[in-house]
């Protein structure tokens, strides 16, 4: 194998100096005389441990090593590290302080399925993607299986939607496929508005062809001949790479008659909600509408429309290549396969982890993530773990052994959400955090329905009183009542889930809530 330097070119590392480093490597190589044996320098997708960016993986005869936080000045040494063992050894010793241990649980416990080739391939080269197997599963499906058989595989794999709600993907595909004859649409939901989540970004920036292949398989399985990818405008690099990938794959004729296009959002979290997404694609305000009818029955321009999350679709090629049973062997009974989490917040190792469903929070946050920097004890100084973003809740350190799957998290009053996992340390007050999320919901409410538009404003003001120690027991009762009302009566998931961070705080951190009540009886109204 030719020796190779894989430079992370995803936006995390790029802003940490990855571009400059890659440039320096290219220059150093040409200075050294780029002969036949010169190492290949390849821009790749996220290499997982984003906090140590810019990351470079060195593959040479002396094995693979991952380096982090490498200044551009060390480019020559990185090149040396690709050489044959005697020369490489010296360079590798010199770079030792930048080396990251690939046997560390952060890397060792990962189970890459969705991110299989993210970090290996050049996201801007279809040839490289195809050399790693892109589109071969699509062609195999089309040659060897019927659409119904593909749907059956997806059903048997137990895959559930990774966008948050966890609806069984195979069932959704069947619903769309079995609608009366006529046109159908396919939409990939790449709106990833959940603050603290960047899994979909990693797929879009690191392996766009996997998403496109997943979409092509989905489109074929449900009979759609047009598709859209709705990407949030905050991800310019993802948009550029996706457009490029689409242009390349369409130029190669890999997609047959399927037409895929990119649509760019304009900054609205609620547009991740599927009916708001449809409205936005059709040039309207992103107001959700009551369901039923579900988009699978009545979607874009009145046609049945399959909407899936990016990660859901990106899992499809691997499922069909490995076989449903193989995929279903990963994970738990109710939640099969793997899930990508973006680990961030007060944790030593932040970045992307893909692990089998059912992995415990402790494994992810303490073993892999290393706990809070400077944190001690079995819980690594962790106070709580926030999952599910503004729709989810905080799980206290005492429950770190909870296996992470859809039901497990829901039972604790949180949600899987899209996969954002933010570690909270002792310095963060839980009421402050609840208020932070409520502020988010107030800002992102579309304003269509009363409980969410007016109710979240009142909830925020109630939380203000708690955070300022002005709250009375009557405020606490009202907080409970209003949370229940907003949750039960809001039109869409945003309003229905907006009280969750408050409810989980009331449930798991009751002590903090009680001690926030005003000292004087009754408090000032």
């Amino acid at each position, binding site marked *: 194998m030719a020796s190779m330097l894989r430079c992370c070119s995803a936006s995390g590392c790029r802003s940490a100096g990855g571009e400059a480093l890659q440039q320096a490597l290219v220059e150093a190589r040409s200075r050294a005389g780029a002969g036949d044996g010169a190492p290949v320098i390849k821009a790749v997708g996220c290499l997982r441990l984003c906090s140590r960016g810019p990351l470079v993986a060195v593959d040479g005869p002396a094995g693979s090593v991952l380096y982090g936080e490498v200044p551009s000045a060390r480019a020559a040494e990185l090149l040396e590290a690709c050489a044959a063992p005697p020369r490489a050894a010296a360079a590798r010793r010199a770079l030792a302080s930048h080396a990251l241990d690939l046997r560390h649980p952060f890397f060792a416990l990962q189970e890459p399925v969705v991110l299989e080739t993210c970090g290996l391939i050049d996201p801007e080269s279809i040839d490289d993607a195809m050399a790693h197997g892109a589109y071969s599963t699509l062609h195999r499906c089309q040659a060897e299986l019927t659409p119904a058989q593909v749907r059956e595989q997806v059903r048997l794999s137990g895959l559930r939607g990774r966008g948050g709600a966890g609806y069984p993907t195979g069932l959704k595909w069947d619903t769309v496929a079995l609608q009366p004859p006529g046109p159908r649409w396919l939409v990939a939901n790449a709106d990833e508005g959940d603050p603290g989540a960047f899994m979909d970004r990693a797929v879009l920036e690191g392996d766009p062809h996997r998403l496109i292949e997943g979409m092509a398989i989905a489109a074929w399985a449900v009979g759609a001949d047009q598709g859209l990818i709705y990407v949030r405008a905050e991800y310019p690099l993802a948009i550029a790479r996706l457009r490029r990938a689409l242009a390349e794959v369409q130029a190669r004729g890999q997609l047959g008659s399927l037409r895929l296009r990119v649509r760019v959002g304009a900054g*609205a979290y609620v547009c991740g909600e599927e009916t708001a997404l449809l409205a936005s694609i059709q040039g309207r*305000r992103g107001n959700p*509408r*009551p369901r*039923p009818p579900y988009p699978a029955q009545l979607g874009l321009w009145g046609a049945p429309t399959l909407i899936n999350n990016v990660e859901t679709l990106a899992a499809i090629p691997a499922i069909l290549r490995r076989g449903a049973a193989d995929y279903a062997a990963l994970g738990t009974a109710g939640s099969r396969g793997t899930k990508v989490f973006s680990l961030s917040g007060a944790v030593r190792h932040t970045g992307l982890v893909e692990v089998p469903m059912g992995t415990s929070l402790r494994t992810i946050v303490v073993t892999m993530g290393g706990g809070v920097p400077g944190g001690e004890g079995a819980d690594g100084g962790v106070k709580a773990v926030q999952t599910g973003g503004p729709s989810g809740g905080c799980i206290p350190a005492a429950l770190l052994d909870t296996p992470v799957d859809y039901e497990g998290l829901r039972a604790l009053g949180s949600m899987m959400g899209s996969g954002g996992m933010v570690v909270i340390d002792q310095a963060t007050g839980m009421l402050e955090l609840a208020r932070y999320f409520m502020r988010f919901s*107030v*800002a*992102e*409410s*579309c*304003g*269509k*329905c*009363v*409980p969410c*538009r*007016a*109710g*979240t*404003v*009142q909830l925020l*003001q109630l939380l203000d009183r708690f955070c300022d120690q002005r709250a009375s027991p009557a405020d606490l009762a*009202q907080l409970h*009542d*209003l949370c229940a*009302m907003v949750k*039960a*009566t*809001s*039109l869409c998931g945003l309003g229905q889930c907006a009280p969750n961070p408050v409810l989980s705080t009331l449930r798991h951190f009751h002590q903090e809530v009680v001690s926030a009540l005003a000292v004087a009886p009754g408090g000032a109204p």
Partner: protein
Amino acid sequence: MSVLTLWVDGAAVAVPAGASLLEASRAANVEVPTLCHLDGLAPVGACRLCLVEVDLPGDGSPTRLVPACSTAAGEGLVVRTATVQLQRFRRMAVELLFAEGNHVCAFCVANGACELQDAAVAVGMDHSRFPFQYPRRHVDASHPHFVIDHHRCILCTRCVRVCDEIEGAHVWDVANRGSHCQIIAGLDQPWGTVEACTSCGKCVDVCPTGALAHNDDTTAEKRAARERPALLRSARERQRWHNQGGPP
């Protein structure tokens, strides 16, 4: 036409397929409070006052709350319209509406002819437990015949829909989002300067509150005609005229 049978508050009713749960409730002589919905306009399910509890037949899935105005009746559904919980939620929704705007009924053109007041009575609300927000809003009296007082607007979007669906002028829309939402005319300009307005008055006819009124109306003089969209729609779409009054 096929007929569906379902239960509303214990009574069996039969309705034509395609009827809404609201229509089914009416058929059962059950009053479900509504605010954003108006017969003749497309339902939007925004105010959440008409939420009812539904058990889906047979499948054992948990009870769901659905808006009666925008949910179709289904065969064998069991609908409850007035559980204790629903009444609590409805009351809170009305309280939230009162706290959200600036509603001083004593000085309002619509006093006595206001659906928000009616809703407050229907849900048994005498005061709002939520602090009033006192938003800073404005009055636009630039139109030669009508006036809009945003303080009293509950964002039901009836005006938007009637002007779009029935009059076809689409003068109104909603601007901004969340609690900053506001009804706007044209490019958020004075109503009187919007060329598209035909001065037909339909928006004033349907507004549930005193937000839209004739500009010579004073306190408690609001003239509303909230049945008009349904009559116009029936005339236009089914060629049936029910708005001809009695013999001269």
